C-alpha cells in the first residue's frame, strides 16, 4: 500500500509524458512477473495463483456492473455458475469441446443477464441489490435441486480444455490459460470503459434522471452493463469447470458473490489494475495467514474492516481527472471554428412546435396541474411564471416525459403525441431541457458532459458496434462548437464540479443544445446568478432563439422575464390565470395578487403583517 501511495505521488507530480512512461514500465514489469511466476513458485502456490487469476477475471466482470455502471450486484456468482454449468453440461452431454462450448456459454450468460436485468433495472439501487442477491440464491437453489445439474453432488468428469491437441491439466498450463483469458477480459472491459457506452454508464452513475433527460436510454444501457458483466463471469465459470473437472453448488454461493464484490471494492471500483490487486489480496492474504490457521478468517475479516477505514475508496481507485490532464490544451483540429453539423430540420419562424392541451396531473390528493393548455411557436421565447408550488416544474415534467399526465395531451409539431413517451425519446424528438437545481455529471469534464448529450443523436448507439465505438473527431468538434457557443471554449477539460456557478448553468444549456433541439425548456436558469451572470444569460437565451430554437423558461426574476419574453404564462394552483404579452400580464390584478405583490409592500417597515402581504389574510 505504501508502495502504491509512493507511486501515485510520483505519478501525479510528473508531466503527462513521464507519467505515461512510468505507467508503461509498471505494466511491462507486471507482465514479465506474471509470465515468469511459474519459474519461482511451487505447485501449491501456483494453484493459488490460478485462483487469483479466476477472481481477477470475476472482479473485472463485476467491475463493469458495479464500478462502471454503479449498480450494486450481490448475486454475481450466478453468472459464474451459469458459465460453469452450461459448459459442463454441453461438454458432458453433447461432447462439445471447451472452445465449442465457449460461445454457447457466453450466449447463455448474456440471456440470463437480460432475464435478470430487464424486469428489475427500474428498481433503485438498494432494492436492486437485494433482487440480485435473490436471483443469485435462486440460481444456486435451482442447481442444487435439479437432477440434470447433478443436485447437491454436482457434475463430474468435465474434460479439461485442449490447446493444439494438448489437454491442459498441469497447474502451470491452467495458469497460462487463465492469464490468456484475463488479458482478454482486461482488453474487453478497458475498451468498454472508453466507449460511448462507458460514458453513458458514467453519466447514469452520476445522475440517472439527468442522463435520461439528455437522451440516454437508461434501462437499455444498464442492461448492457449486466450483459457485459455476465459474459465475463461466464468465462471465469468455464475456466473453473475445466480446471477441476467437477463442479457443485457450494462453489457458487452468496459468499462467492460477496468475495467478488470485496475484490472490486478493495481494489478500487472502476479501476482495472485495482481488480488485479484486489484479487491478489482477497485470495492470497488468507493463504499467507495459514500459520495462524484457526484465526485466519478472523484476521482477514478484521483486516478488511481496517482496510476500508484507511482507504475507503479502495487501493487503486481510478484516476478521474487523468483524461482532462492529457488534453489541457485543445488541439487545433478541435478548435470551434467548424460549424455546427447539419442535423435536425430547422422549423420556419412561427411554425407550431408544441401544443399542450388540457393537461392535468395530481400528486396524492394535490392537484398539481389542472387543465393547462398553451402553444409554442418556432422562434419564440415564452416564460412561465407563478408562485412556488403552482405546478410550473410539473408542467415541464409532463412535457418531457418525466411524468405522464393523468389527462390531457402534449403534441410535438401539432401531430405527434408525447403522452407516455420516455424522457430519452422526447429528447430525440427535439425537445431538450435543463433543471431547476443544476444537474450536471460532476465527475465528467465539460466536453464529456456535452458528449453525453450527443447520445440522443446516435440511434445507432444501441447496436453493439455503435456502443463500443470511441468518440470521433466530429463528435468532439460538435461538443467544442456548443461549448464555444455558451462561452466555455477554454473550459472543456475541467470537471463540471470545477466550474463556477454561472459556468455550470451555461454548460447545462450547452449539453441540452448538443441534441440540436427545436424547443428548449429552461427551468429557472437565472436562479442564484448575480446581475453580471444574468446579463450574460439573457444574451445567451436570445442567441439560442436566433438559431431558430423556441425557448420556454420558468423564471422568478421579473426583470429577466419582462425583457426576454415574447409571451408570458402565469400559473397559480395548477391553472393558467393569465397569459399574453409581458406588459399586459404584469398589470393584471390577478397576477399582482397571486404572484407579484403590491408595490407598497416593497417597504418591509410599512407595518403590514406577513399574512397581509401574502394576501392570506385581508
Amino acid at each position, binding site marked *: 500500500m505504501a508502495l502504491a501511495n509512493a507511486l501515485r505521488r510520483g505519478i501525479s507530480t510528473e508531466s503527462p509524458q513521464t507519467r505515461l512512461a512510468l505507467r508503461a514500465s509498471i505494466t511491462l514489469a507486471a507482465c514479465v512477473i506474471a509470465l515468469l511466476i511459474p519459474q519461482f513458485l511451487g505447485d501449491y502456490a501456483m494453484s493459488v495463483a490460478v485462483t487469483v487469476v479466476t477472481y481477477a477475471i470475476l472482479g473485472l466482470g463485476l467491475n463493469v456492473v458495479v464500478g462502471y455502471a454503479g449498480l450494486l450486484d450481490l448475486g454475481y456468482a450466478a453468472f459464474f455458475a451459469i458459465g460453469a454449468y452450461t459448459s459442463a453440461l454441453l461438454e458432458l452431454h453433447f461432447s462439445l469441446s471447451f472452445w465449442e462450448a465457449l460461445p454457447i456459454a457466453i450466449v447463455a450468460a448474456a440471456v440470463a443477464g437480460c432475464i435478470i436485468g430487464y424486469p*428489475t433495472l427500474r*428498481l433503485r439501487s438498494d*432494492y436492486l441489490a437485494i433482487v440480485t*442477491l435473490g*436471483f443469485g*440464491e435462486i440460481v444456486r437453489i435451482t442447481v442444487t435441486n435439479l437432477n440434470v445439474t447433478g443436485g447437491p453432488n454436482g457434475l463430474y468428469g468435465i474434460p479439461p480444455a485442449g490447446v493444439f491437441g494438448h489437454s491442459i491439466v498441469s497447474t502451470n498450463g491452467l495458469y497460462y490459460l487463465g492469464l490468456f483469458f484475463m488479458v482478454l477480459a482486461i482488453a474487453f472491459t478497458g475498451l468498454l470503459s472508453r466507449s460511448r457506452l462507458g460514458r453513458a454508464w458514467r453519466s447514469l452513475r452520476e445522475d440517472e434522471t439527468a442522463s435520461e433527460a439528455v437522451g440516454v436510454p437508461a434501462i437499455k444501457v444498464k442492461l448492457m452493463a449486466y450483459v457485459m458483466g455476465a459474459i465475463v463471469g461466464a468465462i471465469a465459470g468455464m475456466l473453473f469447470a475445466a480446471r477441476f473437472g467437477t463442479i457443485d453448488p457450494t462453489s457458487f454461493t452468496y459468499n462467492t458473490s460477496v468475495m467478488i*464484490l470485496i475484490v472490486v471494492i478493495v481494489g478500487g471500483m472502476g479501476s482495472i489494475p485495482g481488480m488485479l490487486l484486489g484479487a491478489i489480496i482477497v485470495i492470497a492474504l488468507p493463504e499467507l495467514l495459514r500459520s495462524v490457521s484457526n*484465526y485466519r478468517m478472523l484476521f482477514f475479516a478484521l483486516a478488511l474492516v481496517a482496510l476500508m477505514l484507511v482507504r475507503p475508496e479502495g487501493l487503486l481507485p481510478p484516476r478521474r481527472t487523468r483524461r482532462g490532464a492529457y488534453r489541457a490544451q485543445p488541439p487545433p483540429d478541435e478548435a470551434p471554428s467548424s460549424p455546427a453539423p447539419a442535423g435536425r430540420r430547422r422549423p420556419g419562424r412561427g411554425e407550431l412546435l408544441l401544443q399542450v392541451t388540457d393537461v392535468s396531473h395530481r*400528486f396524492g390528493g394535490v392537484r398539481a396541474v389542472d387543465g393547462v393548455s398553451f402553444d409554442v411557436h418556432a422562434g419564440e421565447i415564452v416564460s412561465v411564471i407563478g408562485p412556488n408550488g403552482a*405546478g410550473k416544474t410539473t408542467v415541464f415534467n409532463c412535457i418531457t416525459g418525466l411524468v405522464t399526465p393523468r389527462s390531457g395531451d402534449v403534441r410535438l409539431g401539432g401531430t405527434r403525441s408525447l403522452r407516455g413517451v420516455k424522457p430519452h425519446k422526447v429528447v430525440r424528438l427535439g425537445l431538450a431541457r435543463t433543471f431547476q437545481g443544476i444537474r450536471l455529471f460532476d465527475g465528467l469534464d465539460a466536453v464529456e458532459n456535452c458528449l453525453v448529450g450527443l447520445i440522443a443523436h446516435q440511434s445507432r448507439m444501441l447496436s453493439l458496434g455503435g456502443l463500443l465505438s470511441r468518440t470521433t473527431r466530429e463528435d468532439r468538434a460538435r461538443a467544442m462548437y456548443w461549448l464555444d457557443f455558451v462561452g466555455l471554449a477554454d473550459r472543456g477539460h475541467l470537471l463540471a464540479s470545477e466550474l463556477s456557478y454561472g459556468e455550470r448553468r451555461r454548460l447545462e444549456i450547452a449539453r441540452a443544445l448538443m441534441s440540436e433541439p427545436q424547443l428548449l425548456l429552461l427551468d429557472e436558469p437565472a436562479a442564484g446568478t448575480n446581475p453580471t451572470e444574468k446579463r450574460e444569460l439573457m444574451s445567451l437565451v436570445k442567441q439560442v432563439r436566433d438559431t431558430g430554437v423556441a425557448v420556454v423558461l420558468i423564471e422568478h426574476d421579473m426583470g429577466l422575464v419582462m425583457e426576454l419574453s415574447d409571451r408570458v404564462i402565469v400559473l397559480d394552483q395548477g391553472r393558467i390565470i393569465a397569459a399574453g404579452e409581458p406588459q399586459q400580464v404584469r398589470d393584471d390584478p390577478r397576477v399582482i395578487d397571486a404572484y407579484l405583490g403590491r408595490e407598497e409592500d416593497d417597504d418591509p417597515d410599512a407595518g403590514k403583517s406577513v399574512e397581509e402581504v401574502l394576501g392570506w389574510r385581508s
Partner: protein
Amino acid sequence: MTAFLQYLVNGLTVGSFLALIALGYTMIYGIIRLINFAHGDVFMVGSFVGYAVVSTVVAQHWPIALIIIVAMLAGMAATGVLGIVIEGVAYQPLLNKPRLAILISALGVSLALEEGARIQFGAGFSSYPGILPTTGFSIGGAHASYAQLGVFVLSLLMMLALYLFVQRTPTGTAMRALAMDRDAARLMGINVERTIMLTFLLGSVLAGAAGVMQGLYYIQINFIMGFAIGLRAFTAAVLGGIGNLPGAMVAGFLIGLIQSFSDGYISSNWSDAVIFGVLIAVLIFKPTGIFGERVVERV
C-alpha cells in the same frame, strides 16, 4: 385444514423472529442507508450469550421465568453494547465516505463475528438446556405450544413499544428527522452521532432478544445461524418498504408464513427460492415494497 392451521401457527412463530430482526435492518437502513450485513450475526451473538447464561444458571434451580428474564436481559444488554461498538468503530468513520466502503466494512464485521463465535464455541451445534414447557393447546386440531404463544406475544409487545417510541417521543421524532436530513437535524440541536448510536442500540437489542428466544425455543444454535435468518429478515425489511417500521413488522410475519407454507406444501429445499421469488415479483409491481418508503412526492 389441520395442516393449514399448523403451518399458520408455525409461520407466525418464525415470523415473530423475522419481524424483530427485520426491524433492526430497516431502522439502520433508514437512518444511515446501510444494509447492515452484520445484523444477523448480532442476533447470533445474542443467542450465544443467552446460551452461556442459561447453561450456567440452569443448575441453580431458579424458577423458569427468572431464568428466561435474566437470559433475555443479558442477551439484550450484550447485543446492545455490541451494536454500539460496531457502529462506533466500523461504521461511524465511514459515514461520509464512498457508499460501498461501509458495506464492505459491514461484511467484514459479519465475518469477524461468525469467526469469533466459531473459535469460541466450535463449528458444531450448541444446545440450550430445554427449559420451556412443551405443553400447549389446540386450535382446530393444530397444536400451538405456550412457548409459541409466549414468543408471539412478547415479540408483539416489543414491536409496539418500539413503534410508540419512534412515533410519539421527541427522541423518536428526532430519529425520523435524522433519517430524512442529517444536517437539518443537527440544526435542531439533535446530537446526530448519539442518535445514530441509539438506533443501533435499539435494533441490536431487538435482535438480541430474538436470539435468546430462538435458542430457548429451537434449542440448537451455531455460529452461522445468523446468516440464513438474517437474509430472510432483510428480505422482509425490503418487502415492507425499507425504512418503514410497520412495513418491516408485517412483512416479517408474511415471510414467516411464506416460509412455513412453502416448507409444508412444497419442500424446505425450495423455500428460499420461493421467498425471493415473491420478493422479486412484488418489487416488479411495487418498486418500493408493499407499504413503500415514507417519501413525499414534491409538486
